[in-house]
């Protein structure tokens, strides 16, 4: 009877709502006994290149402003320099934080350092899987794999996978998606 439920907030009673098929539990921090895959460390190179080039361009522009017109612009140059140092520290960590695993029923992806997230996308919900690779990523032999479900809000992304690995994963995902879909 729902009326006899405890008034205090507490854990969900497993006896009332038993769960017959336990899949491995995933957690936000530790690995919890799952073999998490990392993305290629080369992803950090591409991201650093982009970030540093942007910073450099802005610094040069501000430096020109400082020399020619307005001395206080040097403050901006200094801030961008600090930003570049912070990026040098942050980006490799962010890239290392991206981990993913294929489980029995779904793909799980963890991302982020400051804003951490863990996404579980069931194979049966996959609509299509995209591989994209810009010129810089392609130079490093990397690609971004995007999984799309019926909701644009629930797409999952694994950036910086080695191309062959990404293609193989896409094949596997599409096969599993087909198989699970057929059962519906």
């Amino acid at each position, binding site marked *: 009877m729902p009326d006899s439920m405890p008034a205090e907030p507490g854990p969900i009673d497993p006896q009332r709502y038993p*769960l017959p098929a336990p899949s491995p539990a995933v957690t936000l921090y530790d690995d919890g006994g799952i073999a998490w895959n990392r993305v290629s460390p080369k992803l950090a190179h591409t991201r650093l290149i982009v970030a540093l080039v942007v910073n450099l361009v802005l610094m040069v522009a501000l430096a020109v402003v400082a020399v020619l017109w307005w001395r206080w612009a040097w403050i901006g140059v200094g801030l961008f320099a600090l930003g570049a140092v912070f990026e040098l520290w942050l980006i490799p960590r962010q890239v290392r934080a991206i981990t993913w695993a294929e489980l029995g029923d779904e793909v799980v992806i963890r991302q982020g350092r400051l804003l951490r997230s863990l996404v579980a996308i069931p194979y049966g*919900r996959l609509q299509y899987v995209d591989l994209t690779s810009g010129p810089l990523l392609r130079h490093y032999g990397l690609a971004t794999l995007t999984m799309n479900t*019926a909701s644009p809000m629930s797409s999952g992304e694994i950036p910086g996978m080695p191309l062959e690995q990404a293609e193989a994963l896409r094949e596997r995902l599409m096969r599993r998606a087909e198989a699970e*879909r057929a059962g519906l």
Partner: protein
Amino acid sequence: MTDDSRHDAPLAEVTGDAEWRRFHPLSPLVRGGLVLLAVVGYFLSQWVDRIANSLGGAASADEGGGPPLLAYAVIVPIVVLAIALFAWVSWRYSRFRIGEESLEMRKGVIVREHRKVRLDRIQSVDITRSILARVLGLAEVRVESAGGSDSHVSLAFVTHDEAQQIRRQLMLRAAAAGAAGPGAGGDIDGVGGPWPVGVGERGEGTERGEGTELRLDPSHVDPAREGTPLVRVPTWRIVASTLAGPGIVALVLIWPVLIVGVGLGLWIFVLPWLIPAVLGMAAPIGGRILKWSNFTLDRLPGAVRLRRGLTDTVASTVPLKRVQAISVQQPFAWRPFNWWRVKVNVAGAKISESEDQGVLLPVGTLEEALAVVATVDPNVDPHLLVRGLTQPRQADGFEGAPPRARWVDPVAFRRRGVAVTPSSLLIRGGFLGRRVSIVPHARIQSLTLDQGPIQRTLGLASVQPISTMGPVHPNIQHLSLERAQAVFNDERGRASQARVQS
């Protein structure tokens, strides 16, 4: 126009014997009706002014300022003729046909447009009638389909009888096309077939025509046939509930200004500000009232049908299988009246930012809201739902946010909570307003666990069961990290199990 029949010839061969049909000849008039009326009205008024002026003797002073009467006598007929010609040509070139597999529409003279919608992708067929269309006995058939923003077709206008017949035909054929094979309806998997009709007949419904028709429940298809009435919202309640929010704001904001203004004798200064303010508030209120008056919700087998509108009547059908998430909510201003609103996410529905999207019940009593929820998802425990909606602070049967969540969510954390039931997740929230979102385990697209920097220092995290696009955004915010992970993992299992069973 011999050349356009030649133009159609190859397509007719490809798609079979279906014939191209024209819209009603008065269509351009209804579509451009207001513009035409305005133009004619403008010229007429100018003309009348002029005649009046010339009679009044002021003509000579005015004559130099504008074109003479004679010019109007020439210009007006030319403009009207040009508009009529344009309308006639556009009518000549617009046509549609319903084939065995698709609905096609062509229009345009210079820029030609050919739109083709596969019948097995059709999501809904609605009949809409503007007031002008109603006067002329016409109606518009709107066909929504899955896939792409330009995948809907509006057949405007045909006679009302024809509209009903087209709707019937489209729904029958959509059902037949959907039954043709399991792959045909697989556009959005796990969210139900292309249409609730014929779902039970799958596998044997490959042949079309009479046999297929007989196996379908006609009440799905025949819009004239009444379903079981579920809710009828009296118009006074629509008016009162619409006024309850903005009306109070208006009173609070405008009344003091008015009183002070009048008291100080500052009419001149107050009015220019007040009139636009009042109009700006009145227009959307009036719009909402016109839109939602005469609201009725009928139960059909496997679907519900909404009908609404004072001047423009709109009827639309929501297949229950396509409902992905339900939200029962109460804006603060409705609390004293115990009124509630029910919204749903419907798979494949047109995505729009309008606040009316997905509304199943614009305003109803708690009992009516519960009846709607029970119709859409009979597995929801009404007692649990009512507790979630009405209990202040923590509700029995819900797991709430821990007290330390006050540092990220100082006010609303008290009401937050989640209940896991065998069939769905119930997520409560709101502080001034109140709300419970219901997401069936079987309808969850994916699951997300998030933790921002402040949440991290407090050891909190949020779980989002992601539904399809729509007005309901379920989010279980600020559980302790440990509980969030437990709910996340538990829900993964439940969703997976529910997917297998569905």
